[in-house]
C-alpha cells in the first residue's frame, strides 16, 4: 500500500514540478565571466544593425512614436487600393500575458478611433497554440477580410500559413514576432531584443561597483525575442568584464524569482547588480532585496507601472528598456494606409524608447493599474483610462 502510494506520489510530482526539467538550468557554473556560451540565436549582423538603430533618428510625428519609422524603405501598395469602409481581420497569437492584454486593448481602441473607416474588426485568439493559429488564418481567408493582421505565435511554424494568406491576394501585415517570408506587405516591430538587452546590461555594468557580482534573470530559454536580449547582454557584460555569478530562469513567475534572488543573496551575502530579460518579475526581485534587509542594487526592469512606481518610491538606481505596447496601434494604421494605396515602410521599425531617471515622471501615472505598460501610447485613444483598468 505504502509503496504503491509512493509511486503514485512520485508520478504526480513529475507532472506537478516539471519546471526544472523544462529547460537546462542556468545555475550550472560556467567558466570565465560566468555568462556561458553565446546563444545560438545570436546573429552578429542583426546585433550591429539594432545597436545602430538605437541612435538613429526616426521619421514621422515626434509625439506619435507608433507612426514613426527608423530608416524607412517605402514600398508601393497601389494594387491594394480599395474603397472603404473596410473589414479588418486579426489573427492573434495569444492574450496570455499582461503585455499582450495591454497591447490588444490599445489595438481595440485604435480600431474604435478609426471606426468611420472600419466597418468590422474580427479578432481570433490562437491561445498560444500554433495549430490553432494556422486554422484561424485559414478560416479568416474565407471571411471576406479586406486586410489581415497577424501576430504570429512562433516564427517557423506560422510561415506557411502567412504565405497562404499572401497568395489569397489580400494585404497581410505582420507585427511583433516575425515570419520567415517576405510576402507580407510590411512587418512591424520595434528595434528588438538586442537593443533591449544591451541597454539594460550597459546600465548595470556602468552603475554597479567595480568587480561586483551580477545576477541575470531570464524567463525561459529558446524564444528568439528573449534569446536576443540575453545574447546582447552577454556581449555587454563580457566587454565590461563583469562577474556574472548566476544566470537563472524564472518562468516569469514572481514567487520563483523572489526565491532565486533570495537564494543568491544568502549564498553570496550580497548581489551588486541585477539584469533581467523582461520586467514582469522586476518588483519581486526588488522585494527580495528589501525583505533581506539589503540595498537594492542597480538593475533594469521594463515599463510596467508596478516597477516604475517602486523605482520612484524607493529611489532605485534603475533603467527600463521597453518593448513598447504602442506597436499594437501601428498594424491598424498600416492596414488602412495600404487599403488607401499609400506607401508604407517595409520593414516598419518603430523607435524603442527607454525609461530613465530623467523621464521617469513622464511615464509614471500612479492612477493606472500595476500591470499596465507605460509605453502604450494610448492616452489619446477613446476610452482612456477606463479601458485599460
Amino acid at each position, binding site marked *: 500500500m505504502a509503496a504503491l*502510494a509512493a509511486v503514485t506520489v512520485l508520478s504526480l*510530482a513529475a507532472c*506537478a514540478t516539471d519546471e*526544472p526539467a523544462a529547460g537546462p538550468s542556468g545555475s550550472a557554473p560556467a567558466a570565465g565571466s560566468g555568462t556561458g556560451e553565446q546563444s545560438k540565436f545570436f546573429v552578429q549582423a542583426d546585433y550591429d544593425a539594432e545597436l545602430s538603430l538605437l541612435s538613429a533618428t526616426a521619421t514621422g510625428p515626434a509625439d506619435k512614436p507608433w507612426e514613426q519609422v527608423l530608416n524607412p524603405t517605402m514600398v508601393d501598395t497601389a494594387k491594394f487600393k480599395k474603397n472603404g469602409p473596410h473589414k479588418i481581420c486579426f489573427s492573434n497569437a495569444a492574450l496570455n500575458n499582461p503585455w499582450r492584454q495591454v497591447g490588444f486593448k490599445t489595438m481595440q481602441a485604435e480600431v474604435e478611433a478609426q471606426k468611420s473607416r472600419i466597418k468590422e474588426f474580427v479578432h481570433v485568439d490562437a491561445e498560444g497554440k500554433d495549430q490553432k493559429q494556422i486554422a484561424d488564418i485559414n478560416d479568416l481567408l474565407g471571411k471576406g477580410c479586406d486586410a489581415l493582421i497577424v501576430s504570429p505565435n512562433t516564427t517557423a511554424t506560422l510561415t506557411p500559413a502567412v504565405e497562404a494568406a499572401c497568395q489569397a491576394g489580400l494585404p497581410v501585415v505582420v507585427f511583433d514576432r516575425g515570419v520567415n517570408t517576405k510576402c507580407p506587405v510590411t512587418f512591424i516591430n520595434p528595434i528588438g531584443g538586442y537593443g533591449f538587452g544591451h541597454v539594460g546590461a550597459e546600465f548595470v555594468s556602468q552603475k554597479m561597483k567595480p568587480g561586483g557580482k551580477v545576477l541575470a534573470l531570464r524567463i525561459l530559454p529558446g524564444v528568439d525575442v528573449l534569446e536576443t536580449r540575453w545574447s546582447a547582454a552577454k556581449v555587454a557584460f563580457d566587454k565590461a568584464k563583469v562577474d556574472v555569478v548566476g544566470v537563472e530562469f524564472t518562468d516569469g513567475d514572481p*514567487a520563483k524569482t*523572489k526565491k532565486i534572488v533570495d537564494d543568491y543573496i544568502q549564498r553570496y551575502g550580497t548581489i551588486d547588480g541585477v539584469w533581467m530579460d523582461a520586467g514582469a518579475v522586476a518588483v519581486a526581485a526588488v522585494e527580495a532585496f528589501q525583505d533581506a534587509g539589503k540595498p537594492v542594487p542597480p538593475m533594469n526592469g521594463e515599463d510596467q507601472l508596478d516597477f516604475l512606481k517602486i523605482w520612484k518610491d524607493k529611489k532605485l538606481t534603475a533603467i527600463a528598456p521597453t518593448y513598447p505596447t504602442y506597436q499594437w496601434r501601428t498594424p491598424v494604421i498600416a492596414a488602412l494606409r495600404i487599403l488607401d494605396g499609400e506607401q508604407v515602410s517595409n520593414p516598419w521599425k518603430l523607435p524603442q524608447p527607454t525609461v530613465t531617471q530623467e523621464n521617469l515622471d513622464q511615464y509614471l501615472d500612479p492612477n493606472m493599474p500595476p500591470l499596465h505598460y507605460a509605453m502604450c501610447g494610448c492616452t489619446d485613444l477613446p476610452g482612456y483610462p477606463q479601458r485599460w483598468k
Partner: protein
Amino acid sequence: MQTVQPRSLPLRLPRVRPGGVLPILLILAVLLVLVGIRQPDFLAPPSLMSFLGRSAPIILLAAGQYFVIVSGEFDLSVGSLVTAQVVVAARLIDSDPARTWPVVLLLLAFGALVGLVNGLVTTRLRVPSFITTLGMFLILVGAVYLWSDGAPKGGLSEEFRRFGRRAFEDVPLLGRVPYALLVLVVLAVAAVLLMRSDFGRTLVAVGDNPRTAELSGVRVWRTRTIAFILSGLAAAVAAILLGGYSGVSFQAGAGLEFGAITAVVLGGVALGGGRGAVVGAMLGALTLELLFALMNFYGVSGALRSTVQGGIILLAVAVSATRSSSR
C-alpha cells in the same frame, strides 16, 4: 541522586519507536551543524528568524498533510489549492485594502470547502483518495486558468501581503520576528493540542485500523473528512502567507503537495496511516527546507531539489516498510 521517573525516560528513548521524532531531530541537528560550518551567519537570530518565517507555509502544509496521511489517506490537491487561492485573492482584492479581511475569511472557507469535497468524495463515494485529490488538483489548475485567461489579474493589498512579508521589528534578542512565524507557532501548538485530544487519538486509530475503529463506534468517514478539511484549511493559511511573501503568482503552490508529503514521510509518519506525530511532520518540513538552504550554500542547482525530494521519499518509505515488517 536520581528518582525513578527521569531514569525511565532515557531508557525508553533509545528504542526508536516507529513514528517517533528522534530520527528527524538527529537529522535536523546534523544539518544545523553542517550549515553552521558552511555559513555561520545563517544561524544568527535575524537570518534564522527570516528562514523560519519563509518556511512557515510548508510547515503548515506538512501539518495539514499529516492529518490526512495519519488517517490513512493522501491529499495531492494542496499545491494547486494554494495557487488557486492566491489567484482568487488577487482578483477579488484587486489592490483594495478594504477587501482584505473579507477575502481572508473567504479563502479559509474555500479551503475548508475543497477539503470537505475531497473528504466526502473519498469516504462516501469510496473513490481512493489519491484519485480524488488528483482530480481536485486538475480541476483547480484548469479552473484557475479558465477564470484568469492564463494571466494573473488584479493585485494583493499591502494589508494582505503583510502576513507573509512583514515582521515585528526590534524584538529584544531575536531582532525581527516575522508575522508568519507567529502564525506558525500558534497553529503548531493548536495542532499538537488537537492530536492530544480525543479527536487526535481517534484519527490515528482510524489510520491504524479503520475496521477496528468502525467496530468500536468511530464514524470513520466523519473523522477522515475532518482530516481533509484540516488540510484544506492549512492550505488556505499557507496561501495567505505565500501570496503575501511573493505576490500574485501562477506558481505560488507548484509542487507543494509533494514537498508536504516528503516532509511528512521524512518526519517518520507512516504512509498508510496509524503511526507518527504531527511534530515529526512539521520537523520534517523544517529539515527539508534546511537541506535546501544547505544545498543553496554549496551552489547546488535548484533544479536538483525535486530529485532530492524523490530520493528522500523513496528512502524514507523503504526504511519504514522494513521497520514495520519486522514489527
